[in-house]
Each structure stands twice: as C-alpha cells, then as structure tokens.
C-alpha cells in the first residue's frame, strides 16, 4: 500500500490563509489532464453507484434468459450477457453500487479504527506508543489481502463481513501514517504554546492536531478506496467476499472463467469496470497528494 506524507502543518494564525491557498492549488490541479480524467472517472462511478439501484431494478440484473445465454454485445444487450443470459450492463451498474459502497464504508471503518490508534500513539508517545506501535506493526506483517481473507473466512463470507474484513485489514496502514503525522505536528511550537496556555490533551488533539493531519488522511483514504475495490473484487473472486446473486465485479470475473473461449466479454466488461474505477481513484489520489504534499514524489 502506498504511504503518504504531509506538508509541514500550518500555525493556527496562518491557517485560514493556507487553507485558501490549498483550495486554490487543488482547484488548479484538478483542472490539469490527469486531475480532470481522475475526477471525471470518480464522479461517473460515484453516480453509477448512487443512481444504479434507483434506475436499475434488481430484477433486471438477476433476470435469467436462457435463450440469450452468452450473447455478445447487441442492441438488446449493450454489453452482452453472461452464462445465465443476465444483462451485463445492468450487472456492471449494480456491481458499481456494491463495490463502491463496500469500499467507501470499509475505508470509513479503517479511518475510524486507524485514526484514534495513530493519534494516541503519536501524541502520548512513551509506553502508549510502544504498545500501540507493536500492535500496528504486527498487523502490518500480514499482507492486507491475507488478513482480509482470514477475517472473512473466520466471520463467514457476506457483504457486511467483507466490509469488516477490508476495514480491519486497512486500518494499520492508516494508523501508521496518522502516527507519523501526529509526531511531526506535536513537535511544532504552536502545540507547545497551546500546552503552556493550559489547554487539555483532548482540546489540543481536537483543535490543533486533527485539523493539521487531515490532508494525508484524505489522500490515503482516496488511494485506499482504490485498493478496497481491488480487495473486494479479489475476495469475491475467491468466494470469500460478496455472495451471489448480489452483483459484484469480482464475482462476475470469477463466473466468467469457464466461458473465456466462447464469451471473453463476460470477463472483460467487469475487469474494465474495476480498472477504470481504480484508475480514476489513483489519478485523483496522485493529484491530491501532489497538491497537499509537494515534498512527496509519487514515483519514488
């Protein structure tokens, strides 16, 4: 998983000016080719995820039509049909809903778990840091997909547990980034100043630490959503994620395995959907990182 680092946080007195500058830089960056393509893809897939369940009745994506089995793309079925004659366009649209919802909620969960762990570790240092860092390092020793697979196998494969598995597997990556940023922020003079004014730890964390570490959290979250889409597809592909008949891109690719010779589009359509969604999020993540962290070179 990619790690991100943060620019030197702003002192509270300069905060509003810096925020304004950052907003301007983000707007400019999003208008370059890479930013524009990334943003467009993300908007398209987000709209697909939100609107698909409203405009595509689930019955259409699960409707079995044996007379139209493995039909190539035609006017009646724009992206072709699968081995049960189900329309691939409808399934890909509803698959976007499944994938995006799982990815966004799982990343939300990883933030909910990783943020407090990282802040506590970086802010209190000492024994708290030692204990929490060991826990995080231990979890980081498990490749994320292995941890997610093991958790999913333990809890039983279904939609909710897929979210839990991915969220828990990604949390240590976020915790590590947040800890590093918190360590940087807490060594700055304005934290010392707040402390000398008698501010409590909770107030310092809430008012000064959290706002100044949010930039890398946002960048990491964007990139994590891309990884979560890949992880969901991987888990479902192995039968340990979303279960049929819920449309999922990973499940669609898995089902296509036996029909590759006669109907390659059954794999290519969901595969391209995964690729474009991940591509968009990666491009957007790269652009955001370039703006929010000019010292970070994404290629190195």
């Amino acid at each position, binding site marked *: 998983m990619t790690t991100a680092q943060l620019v030197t946080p702003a002192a509270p007195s300069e905060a509003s000016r810096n925020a304004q500058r950052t907003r301007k830089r983000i707007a400019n960056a999003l208008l370059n080719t890479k930013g524009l393509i990334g943003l467009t893809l993300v908007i398209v897939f987000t709209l697909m995820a939100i609107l698909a369940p409203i405009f595509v009745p689930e019955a259409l994506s699960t409707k079995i039509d044996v007379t139209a089995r493995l039909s190539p793309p035609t006017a009646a079925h724009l992206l072709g049909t699968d081995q049960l004659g189900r329309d691939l366009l409808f399934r890909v649209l509803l698959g976007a809903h499944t994938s995006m919802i799982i990815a966004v909620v799982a990343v939300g969960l990883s933030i909910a778990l990783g943020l407090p762990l990282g802040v506590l570790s970086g802010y209190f240092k000492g024994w708290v840091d030692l204990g929490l860092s060991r826990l995080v390092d*231990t979890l980081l020793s*498990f490749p994320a997909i292995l941890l997610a697979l093991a958790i999913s*196998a333990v809890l039983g494969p279904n939609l909710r547990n897929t979210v839990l598995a991915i969220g828990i597997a990604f949390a240590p990556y976020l915790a590590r980034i947040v800890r590093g940023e918190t360590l940087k922020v807490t060594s700055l003079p304005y934290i010392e100043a707040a402390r000398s004014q008698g501010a409590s730890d909770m107030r310092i964390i809430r008012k000064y630490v959290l706002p100044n570490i949010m930039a890398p959290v946002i960048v990491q979250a964007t990139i994590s959503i891309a990884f979560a889409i890949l992880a969901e*597809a991987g888990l479902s*592909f192995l039968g340990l994620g979303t279960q049929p008949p819920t449309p999922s891109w990973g499940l669609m690719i898995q089902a296509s395995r036996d029909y590759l010779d006669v109907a390659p589009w059954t794999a290519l359509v969901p595969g391209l959907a995964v690729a474009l969604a991940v591509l968009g999020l990666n*491009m957007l993540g790269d652009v955001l990182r370039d703006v929010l962290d000019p010292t970070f*070179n994404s290629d190195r």
Partner: protein
Amino acid sequence: MRYLLNRIALLALTLLLISIVTFILTNILPGNVATMIMGTRGNPVSIAALEQELGLNDPLVVQYGRWIGGMLQGDWGTSLRFKEPIGSLLGQKMAASGMIVVLSLIIAILSAIPLGVIAAVKQNRWPDTVSSGVALAGISLPDFFWGIVLILLFSRTLGWLPSSGFVSPADDFWLSIKHALLPAIALGLSLMAHLARMTRSAMLEVMSQDFIRVCRAKGLSEGSVILRHALQNAIAPVVTVAGLQLGYLFGSIIVVESLFNYTGMGWLTYQGLLNRDVPLIQATVFIIAAVFMLSNLIVDLIYTVLDPRISFD
C-alpha cells in the same frame, strides 16, 4: 550494530505477536478441529472424546503453548484436508511459490527498467505516453484479471503455455518453468508498473545532473551516457524497492495461485481457508506473515549497505 541488534530483538517480538494474532484469529473460527475431523461420522460422544484427546478443552494459553512449542520443534501438526504432516506440505509448497515469486521479480525488473529508461529518454513524447499508459494499466487492473487475459491469450488462443497446474522442477525443469510462467507474469505486472514509474523518475533525476553533462561534453555516445552512466546511478533504488516488494508478492500469491491452480503456498492457504483446516491456516498464515516481515527487514539492511548516507543508529 546496535540498530541490527534492535531490529533482531524486534523481529523476535513481532514474530511472537504474529503467532498470537494468528492463533487467536483461527480460534474464533466457528466449529473446532474435532468436529472437522469427525465430519458427518461424528456424534456428540465421539466428538467430546476427540476434543479431550486433542486437548481442545484446555485453556487457550495452554493450547497456544503446545502449538508454538510444537512449531519450534518442527512439528506443525497434521492437515485435516490433506491428512498429511503440515511440515512436509509447507516444504513443497514454499519451493513452488518461491519459484513464481522469483520469476515474477525477474520479469518485473527486466521489463520495467527498459520501459522506464525509454520513457525518461523520450520524455513527453509518444514512447513516454505509451510507457506511462502501460504502467497505469498494470497498477489499476487486479492481478486475477491479468491472469484471465493471459490464459485467454497464451493458453487458449496461442496454445503456447499451460493454463493451470504445477510441475516440480525435479521432474521436468522446462515444463515446470512453462507452468510457472503465466502465474509469474500475472503476479509481476503490477510490480513492473511501479518499477517502471520509479525507473523513469530516477533516470530523469540522474540525467539532469552535472556529471551527465560532463559525459556528453567529453563526446561519449548517447547510448553510453544513458546505459553506462545514467542507468548505473539510477538503478540502485529501483532494485531495492523491487526487493522490498518480495513480501508483497508473497501476499498476492493466494489469488494468483488459486486462479492458475498452481499448488504453492497461496493455493495451500486458500484450501485451508475454504475447508476451515485450522492447523493448516495457522501454519500458512504465520509463514506468509513471517516471510513478509523478514523480507522487509532484509531490504532495510541491504539499503544501509547500498546507501552509506543512511544510518539508523
């Protein structure tokens, strides 16, 4: 030296913690080993007797002690699915996975470096665009999708390579390479993409330095400037990062080996997870995590040797 000792102490502690996490994780699996061994033959009395015999009624700490003690003596238990000692299974499967991991690393490095160099030399021209496009596709597409495309192309359409199975190099070396090639390519594509981007960036940085201008001023050919001087200076971090990804590749083998039915560690782990084979899950998950961590440590240490500016003391 102090850094090395610290790292080794931390390594031992983290391995211990990994074993605890693995043990806890597998012990919350619904059902227990006794029910799985007895299967449909089991009745409550026979299951209870087997639980007693296997020590499943002992406190978790005692069970953990027994597991870790056995492991330290090389006794990993017996697989419920394969009815074989796990130790011998691990030996065979590690060798099989090692082969595709090493092969994918070689493929990734050999294809990424030329791609990155061409992209840097022809910066902002069509070869750069094509190379960046290939890199982005490699990063964005899941490895199992690449696997399917590779099977479709090289196995079903061209008939050059087998689409599934594993052959031991001891039986037939070339056939074993042929079986390992497609999984290795599928595994290595995303790494290749990362390395190509890194090579491009490292080459651009090196080529903007003064010594390259001096080389050109001396009248050296462009080929010599790029290959002998620029690439030589740009390659160290690329190779180091490639090594760092060794552990990551070991994490990705589960999906790829399952797709190609390549019977290595990933496939074994997947079989364990699917069949709730607790002893097998414990052993494979622990081994993969340990390899992942060890490879990171080794690369960290190599880094300090390769780049004397980095000191951890």
